[in-house]
């Protein structure tokens, strides 16, 4: 149902509260906002569990905003050293953990929230892939979503510098060095991003400003745009059919249910309680997430003189980090380093073109053919492999194999470097060849109405 501003204004029932509400509603579109986006926004009645993750992302967003505000009250973006030789930024994070009443809870919420944000966003995006949620008329919904994902990556990357530990420092150092690959202006760009010749106090302070203020504002605006665009065109569903085609005499879709309360209370609330159970299980029993949510080396203060032994980004970046590392050839007189940067960014931006790459007659996987199903399964494998390999060193081999000096064909086949390249190529080919295979795939007939048991 499209957002409609022609809802009748609230009429007081004569009580004092009713009068106040009528006064307010006459001056502010309260009723129409409520109705347009909640109580009279009609969503398809056949949502399944894949439709939980959008609401979960909002819950995590709220957690990150609230905890972030409280952390800013105590955190100090200061690279100077305490008398005991620890950077003040690093020390202030531990100050929150140890000395601020309840601070450990707030900080762990924020660090756990960062990982959970990516978990729910990746699942939310995968839902879109499964059911063709990016297809016409939802192209803008999808593009706003890709921009939100970019913002999220920027926030996470900048936020990760703030504890000023070894991984913070060297992670930023390595990634920012890749900007210097850009021809002609690259060195200047990375210097301007850092504000110094290496990652330094200036970088910490500007990343703080961007992390707590600029990018969250952009993110919030994009989230609003994402939802407004969605409510303009209406939600997709697991059958990938348009519910607006069949309406009753009041113009209400026959297969639609009000978003509130059927989906808010009846669907998302219990699901979010489950998510919070996972969230708090990690927070209270597993806050380091096995070294993936909080990396062990980040408990060492940043030392610009010594790189940590094992350098890997946080898990949610590792897939794109793998794409960066996959490029080791110099093409067309252009350095591999530049190709690495290009492929890393292309890995994200290519998602934005999905609405035009997919030419299948059916939107949903339920009615799409075997080619899509097989290729999508391998796409999941490729993404998981790239995630996994990004956490490992370049010399990693599967099955705990240690290569000898002479590399046999077998040792290449089970090497991480080979699989990084292989699955990066697959990742891109999946998208680039989509216009071809999505068209020839044998789809099943799509029903007129949604299936609802």
């Amino acid at each position: 149902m499209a957002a409609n501003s022609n809802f009748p204004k609230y009429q007081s029932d004569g009580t004092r509260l009713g009068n106040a509400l009528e006064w307010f509603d006459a001056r502010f579109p309260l009723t129409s906002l409520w109705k347009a986006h909640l109580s009279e926004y009609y969503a398809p009645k056949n949502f399944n569990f894949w439709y939980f993750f959008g609401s979960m992302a909002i819950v995590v967003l709220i957690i990150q905003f609230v905890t972030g505000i409280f952390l800013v009250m105590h955190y100090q973006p200061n690279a100077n050293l305490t008398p005991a030789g620890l950077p003040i930024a690093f020390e202030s994070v531990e100050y929150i953990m140890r000395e601020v009443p309840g601070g450990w809870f707030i900080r762990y919420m924020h660090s756990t929230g960062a990982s959970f944000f990516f978990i729910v966003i990746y699942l939310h995006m995968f839902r879109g892939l499964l059911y063709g949620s990016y297809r016409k008329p939802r192209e803008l919904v999808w593009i706003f979503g890709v921009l939100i994902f970019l913002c999220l990556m920027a926030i996470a990357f900048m936020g990760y510098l703030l504890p000023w530990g070894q991984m913070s420092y060297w992670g930023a150092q390595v990634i920012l060095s890749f900007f210097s690959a850009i021809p002609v202006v690259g060195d200047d760009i990375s210097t301007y991003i850092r504000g110094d010749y290496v990652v330094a106090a200036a970088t910490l302070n500007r990343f703080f400003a961007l992390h707590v203020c600029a990018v969250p504002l952009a993110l919030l605006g994009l989230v609003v745009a994402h939802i407004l665009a969605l409510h303009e065109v209406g939600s997709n569903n697991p059958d990938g059919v348009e519910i607006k085609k069949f309406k009753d005499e009041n113009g209400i879709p026959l297969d639609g249910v009000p978003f509130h309360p059927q989906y808010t209370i009846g669907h998302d609330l219990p699901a979010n309680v489950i998510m919070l159970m996972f969230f708090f299980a990690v927070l209270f029993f597993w806050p380091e997430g096995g070294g993936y949510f909080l990396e062990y080396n980040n408990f060492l203060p940043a030392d610009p003189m010594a790189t940590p032994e094992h350098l890997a980004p946080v898990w949610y970046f590792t897939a794109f980090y793998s794409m960066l590392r996959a490029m080791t050839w110099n093409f067309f007189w252009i350095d591999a380093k530049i190709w690495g940067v290009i492929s890393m960014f292309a890995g994200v931006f290519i998602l934005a073109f999905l609405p035009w790459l997919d030419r299948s007659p059916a939107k949903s996987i339920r009615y799409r053919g075997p080619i899509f199903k097989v290729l999508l399964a391998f796409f999941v494998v490729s993404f998981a492999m790239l995630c996994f390999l990004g956490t490992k060193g370049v010399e990693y081999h599967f099955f705990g194999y240690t290569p000898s000096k002479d590399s046999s064909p077998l040792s290449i086949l089970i090497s991480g470097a080979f699989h990084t390249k292989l699955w990066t190529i697959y990742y891109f080919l999946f998208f680039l060849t989509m216009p071809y295979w999505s068209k020839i795939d044998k789809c099943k007939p799509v029903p007129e109405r949604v299936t609802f048991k």
Partner: protein
Amino acid sequence: MSDQKKGCDSERRNLLVATSVLGGAAVTAAAVPFVASLAPSERAKAIGAPVIADISKLAPGEKMVVKWRGKPVWILRRTPEMLASLEAVKEKLSDPDSEKSAQPAYAKNAERAINKEYLVAVGICTHLGCSPTDKLKPGTDEGVQEPGWQGGFLCPCHGSLFDLAGRVFKGQPAPTNLEIPPHMFDPANPNLVTIGVDPTDSKGA
């Protein structure tokens, strides 16, 4: 709206009430660490720990200032004349018996002190938090226009006048007398005064 009413059976209403109550309780519980984080941290408490002042070098009629919880705490060694002035100005005071003012019970007396020779007071005006300046000499030598000035303190921000026991004069912006912090004299060495601890405590610092 009518849709909702139709489905509003008693089972749902009970569940809604139970969910709201438990949900409210959960949100309240989750708010506890956030509210708690606004309280002084362990660092602030350590910095705000009791301080010990050595008053052996303080001559009669002199004042020294020590920092306690980030605030100036005055220690004024009062001469017999100064102590006598306290009785003389009593009529002009807003709260001469410190009924409305903040002080430990053992300092709720005419001298507002546990040891009447020494005034130990937080040097922060009870009006809007400025620190009053010394106008210890009687008369108009120090520019105080109050007739019959016996010595005391003048707040530079809004002109509140206090006597030598930190008691505020009538008709001043400051509502109450200066706060007297908990303080004790070391029984073994009367030249050491601890600020921030009541004498009943087993051990200072």
